């Protein structure tokens, strides 16, 4: 990050208490509570679309200044939860509190949220600067101040010299940066990001997600980030909430989710896993003759499927015998698929200098810390 953008972030934060005209937001709970680092609480939020239950007693608390990612497959309800918080969907039941005040019945325009959408949402008839000014204009901020703050916000996202450009003159990444500046310039209590990177190229996506995280950290704004990309969620969030069928399956730090998944669904959805047949006995899993510790030692004895991460397997001189089926290069690592003697195919992640060829006979063994193996699914 450059020194200039750092200074700009400080300027925006510093001016918020003295220059923001409260406008309609003045009567909202934010005014009394300080504008950054709001606590958000979903409590039993339920939402139906016809017969489909999009949210089913959804509970989640975002701590002040926290960056929480909602992760889940399509249709799991993550966007509905975010839209309910924004006021763009009305919950059928439950409450949404911001700093302890119920905002469930407040219209969107009075919730004091900043939101970046999945689709490009810049107003085409306005320049980038005018787009950023829009929220300030709605709050009755004077023109000169508005322009200055819009320029600061554009500088924060690295587009200081793009004030006069129109949406059709900006790339997709630039448009989302402007949208981010527009969402932040009003110093909202909560920043909502609805898959803002999904329409962008891979490289731009990575760059922008890091920038979003940097800005969020600098401003200390509570942020809810919806994504279906687990890499994105794990890379930027303080905590990740994995959703399934309208509810939360597990909430935790990225490390928790990856290393100590609470259910087979989480283990399968977050990261890659090999599913191997095994048996649980007295808090340990027996897999191919190896005794492995369980993440959840209370697991009942019996036949199970053991989920093992590809990085928790390694080539060795002894262990399970198999034949290399395929090997793929992933830049900093390589993944090789091996067919074991009983027909099971497992994936092994290893360094790139090891280059097994298809048809090679190899042996594998389990490695790493005990937590790297989880017995999570009882086989039928």
């Amino acid at each position, binding site marked *: 990050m450059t020194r200039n953008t750092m200074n700009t972030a400080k300027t925006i934060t510093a001016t918020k208490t003295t220059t923001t005209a409260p406008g309609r*937001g003045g009567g909202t709970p934010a005014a009394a509570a300080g504008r950054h680092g709001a606590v958000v609480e979903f409590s039993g939020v339920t939402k139906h679309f016809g017969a489909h239950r999009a949210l089913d007693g959804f509970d989640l608390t975002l701590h002040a200044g926290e960056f929480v990612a909602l992760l889940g497959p399509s249709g799991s309800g993550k966007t509905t939860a975010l839209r309910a918080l924004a006021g763009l969907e009305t919950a059928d039941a439950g409450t949404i509190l911001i700093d302890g005040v119920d905002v469930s019945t407040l219209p969107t325009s009075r919730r*004091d949220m900043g939101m970046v959408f999945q689709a490009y949402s810049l107003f085409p008839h306005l320049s980038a600067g005018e787009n950023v000014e829009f929220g300030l204009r709605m709050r009755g901020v004077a023109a000169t101040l508005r322009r200055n703050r819009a320029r600061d916000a554009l500088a924060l996202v*690295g*587009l200081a010299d793009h004030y006069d450009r129109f949406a059709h003159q900006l790339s997709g990444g630039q448009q989302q940066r402007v949208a981010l500046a527009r969402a932040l310039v009003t110093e909202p209590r909560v920043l909502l990001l609805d898959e803002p990177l999904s329409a962008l190229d891979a490289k731009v996506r990575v760059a922008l997600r890091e920038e979003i995280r940097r800005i969020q950290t600098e401003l200390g704004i509570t942020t809810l980030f919806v994504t279906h990309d687990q890499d994105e969620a794990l890379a930027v969030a303080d905590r990740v909430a994995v959703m399934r069928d309208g509810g939360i399956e597990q909430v935790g730090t990225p490390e928790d989710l990856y290393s100590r998944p609470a259910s087979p669904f989480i283990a399968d959805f977050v990261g890659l896993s090999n599913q191997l047949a095994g048996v649980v006995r007295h808090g340990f899993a027996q897999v191919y003759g190896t005794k492995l510790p369980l993440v959840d030692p209370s697991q009942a004895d019996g036949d199970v499927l053991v989920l093992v991460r590809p990085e928790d397997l390694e080539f060795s001189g002894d262990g399970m015998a198999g034949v290399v089926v395929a090997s793929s290069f992933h830049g900093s690592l390589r993944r090789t698929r091996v067919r074991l003697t009983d027909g099971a195919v497992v994936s092994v992640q290893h360094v790139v200098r090891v280059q097994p060829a298809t048809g090679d006979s190899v042996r594998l063994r389990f490695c790493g810390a005990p937590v790297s193996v989880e017995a999570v699914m009882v086989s039928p």
Partner: protein
Amino acid sequence: MTAVRRTEGGSRRRTRPGPVARGGVAHAPSRTARAVILGVIGVFFLVPVVAMVEFTLRKGLGGGHDASRWIALAQGGLTGQYRQVLVALANSVGLAVGTVLIVLLLLVPTLLLVHIRFPWLRRVLEFVCILPISIPAIVLVVGLAPVYSLLSRLAGSGVWTLALAYGITVLPYAYRAIQADLDGVDVRTLSEAARTLGAGWRSVLFRVLVPNLRRGILAGAFIAVAVVLGEFTIASLLSRVNLQTALVVVSKADPYTAVIFSLLALTFAFLLLLLIGRLGAERTRPRRRRPIGGRP
């Protein structure tokens, strides 16, 4: 002619098209083909107009041409002998304004509401709006006659009541013009973005949606004006006076002057269409253009 290409980050920019690849499909006709097409169409439209002008310049059975009828009309014909045409023109202009108001106040909000809140009603709305184009004016009048009979008792039989019928007849044209613009704008996302930024529905409508739909709304409004100025059947059958019915009356007494009025009405409609193009073109014109570049 411009083409659209994807750029880094997935946005679109307008660029000049490159040459057509060998073996590829040409997307635009050649310059010559375009000139021929334009010429044929131009002649098709121009010949009747030129014939009308020539007709108004004829001296009579003796042969020869002069501009005496144009001059006579310009020197006071409108305030004397053809005063009823002025009255009829005023009626038509009033009806056009009324019809445009119906389009703006009824159709535009309805279209936006359906687009944003009730998208599943879109097909129904389209059917309702397009329906009048398939109903002959005479059939429409037969259906409207009892309605107008009742309306006459309730609100009188002023010429303004025709605006209600015209509101129906212009629906297909206005709908297509506005809907075409709506399809090109992500109205839902834009309105949601504006609302999260603190805008109420009125601000959403007037500061975000209307500016981005200006071209479609203007086109719908001007097409409504053009349709109303050219309408004859409904006004005639419902015994109301508008420009077209007045011209028919004039043509029975003086066909030359009637054609002059027709030419003037045609010119007015042509200028309206030019205005549409002009105002619509200004919509997305940036105030200052700079070369594209910079960070992703």
